[in-house]
């Protein structure tokens, strides 16, 4: 009896913390959802559930039946292709760097990694203008490569650091065994290292992909043609109007939030394990 009381009080404490946190995080999302199923005139009615829930908003968005949404699918595709490109390129750069620094112990590798990490001392917003200028010099403005390269720059230092920490944990004897077995560094990388790093690679790939998917500032600065911009920037353009179609903005926002949620859910096992992999020195 005593034990169960203790258990109940413990559960109660958890609930006491958990319920406010749940409400705190879910409320804005619920609002987003409410807007998306409310007709335009009822959007601001303030009901907990609309009188006449409708899927009309989704129809408009998917059918591109609004001025602001005339390139919805294209912009969604832009977001997708840019995010995937950033994810893959970051993986390519960071894995190679981590392998070189951690396993091949390239001289000066650590210094280079620390230099890269140093860029985080400057807020990304401050770097936006120099980056804009740089892309201008290279003639990449209004080219999606500009955004991809910019996001790669932002994602890479952290990714290299996490992957380096994770690969430091792999036993060095494996490299030596492979070396004696006759593996060249490239074969070691391809046949042993990549397989063992997979959880961390998934985590970092997802991290970079989501970072690019959610980016607004750089996307807004570097791309301006509405056939080039990402959906995130397109959403921002809604606010340019005096009478913004809030219910469509929220509907699109909800749709835009779904892929990251799905990706996170699919890979959450790796995300937790991978992103904390380098957190503690063991």
């Amino acid at each position, binding site marked *: 009896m005593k034990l169960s009381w203790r258990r109940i009080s413990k559960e109660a404490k958890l609930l006491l913390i958990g319920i406010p946190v749940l409400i705190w995080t879910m409320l804005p999302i619920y609002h987003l959802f409410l807007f998306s199923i409310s007709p335009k005139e009822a959007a601001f009615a303030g009901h907990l559930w609309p009188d006449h829930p409708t899927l009309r908003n989704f129809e408009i968005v998917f059918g591109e039946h609004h001025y602001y949404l005339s390139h919805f699918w294209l912009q969604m595709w832009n977001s997708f292709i840019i995010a995937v490109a950033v994810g893959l390129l970051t993986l390519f750069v960071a894995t190679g760097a981590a392998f070189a620094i951690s396993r091949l112990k390239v001289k000066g590798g650590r210094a280079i990694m620390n230099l890269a990490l140093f860029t985080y001392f400057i807020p990304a917003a401050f770097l936006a203008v120099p980056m804009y200028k740089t892309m201008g010099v290279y003639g990449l403005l209004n080219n999606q490569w500009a955004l991809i390269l910019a996001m790669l720059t932002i994602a890479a230092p952290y990714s290299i650091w996490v992957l380096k920490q994770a690969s430091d944990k792999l036993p060095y004897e494996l490299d030596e065994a492979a070396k*004696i077995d006759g593996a060249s560094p490239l074969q070691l990388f391809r046949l042993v290292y990549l397989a063992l790093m997979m959880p961390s690679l998934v985590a970092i790939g997802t991290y970079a992909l989501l970072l690019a998917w959610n980016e607004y500032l750089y996307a807004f600065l570097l791309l301006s043609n509405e056939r080039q911009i990402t959906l995130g920037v397109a959403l921002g353009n809604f606010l340019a109007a005096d009478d913004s179609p809030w219910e469509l903005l929220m509907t699109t926002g909800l749709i835009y939030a779904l892929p990251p949620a799905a990706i996170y859910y699919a890979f959450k096992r790796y995300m937790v394990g991978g992103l904390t992999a380098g957190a503690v020195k063991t």
Partner: protein
Amino acid sequence: MASVSFQSVEKAFGSTKVIHGIGFDIKDGEFMVLVGPSGCGKSTLLRMLAGLEEISGGTIAIDGKVVNDVESKDRDIAMVFQSYALYPHMTVADNMAFSLKLRKAEPKTIEERVAKAAKILNLDPYLKRYPRELSGGQRQRVAMGRAIVRDPKVFLFDEPLSNLDAKLRVAMRGEIKALHQRLKTTTVYVTHDQVEAMTMADRIVVMHDGRVEQIGTPLDLYDHPGNLFVAQFIGSPAMNVIEGTVRRVNGTRHVEAAGGVLWPLGNETGSEGQAVSYGVRPEHLRVTGANDGVPAEIIVVEPTGAETELLVQAGTAQVTLVTHGRPQVSPGDRIGLGIEQGAVHLFDQKTGQRIGA
């Protein structure tokens, strides 16, 4: 199969010298054990032979060919690591086949060799399993299998049994020895465990502080340790060593230890007045009557069944004694210590070197 030759081999990490000019030869087909306390440089020496560490000075030759500048993979060696170092994402069969695949061997050859190695090591039922699904002993066998399939000139073992429990260690010791007798491949085996060294080796290299203390067959080292270090390192329980001075008392020669205790000398050389270390192995001591031999008092009695280990106090020295019987003694008893003829080892106290034969 091949011979291995070390000549004035040196190793320095930065300005710290860890190996000071080591030279010896390993014969074709020999099972050579490098033994010594941790930090003595035995693993470093093995890793230099494996090509995992640069050679700072001198030469290492395999089969007469100097390999200082030859890559690991081209030295035709195979190594078994303490941590097994199995590839976790590959099955047992893939682990064993890895080196052959890298060398682009025919799939048929690979299959045959893996099957043969698996048969030798009783790994047949586990070929499709992953390392994480195996016990420690099985993993160790896979690591050996990976070495066998290569059919290398030299096997290298780096403390391969340290991660196993005591019982398994003894079993694997036998397996490795049997494997060597079957394959007759030249083997270099590193361990800090002198029992492992004694039971497995054809010859032993005892190392200490980056130098070779003595090289010889196990029983040679046991019976004729060349210096105090080897004397105390080889054998378990360790040799008793008593510090004293050579004296002639009543016409016979003794070593007089602190407190005036006289330890008898036989034909061992050693000049009168010389400061020496008097060494005698625990099994060469026996319990006699209180008025015979060296007077002593029993402190601890440890029966192990087959043998009884006694810790006794003789003067200021504590001495271990092993007897096959079950002596009827208990702590506090006063006894005499008898010493077997010709069983005494004398060492110079200053240099630690053996005196006489």
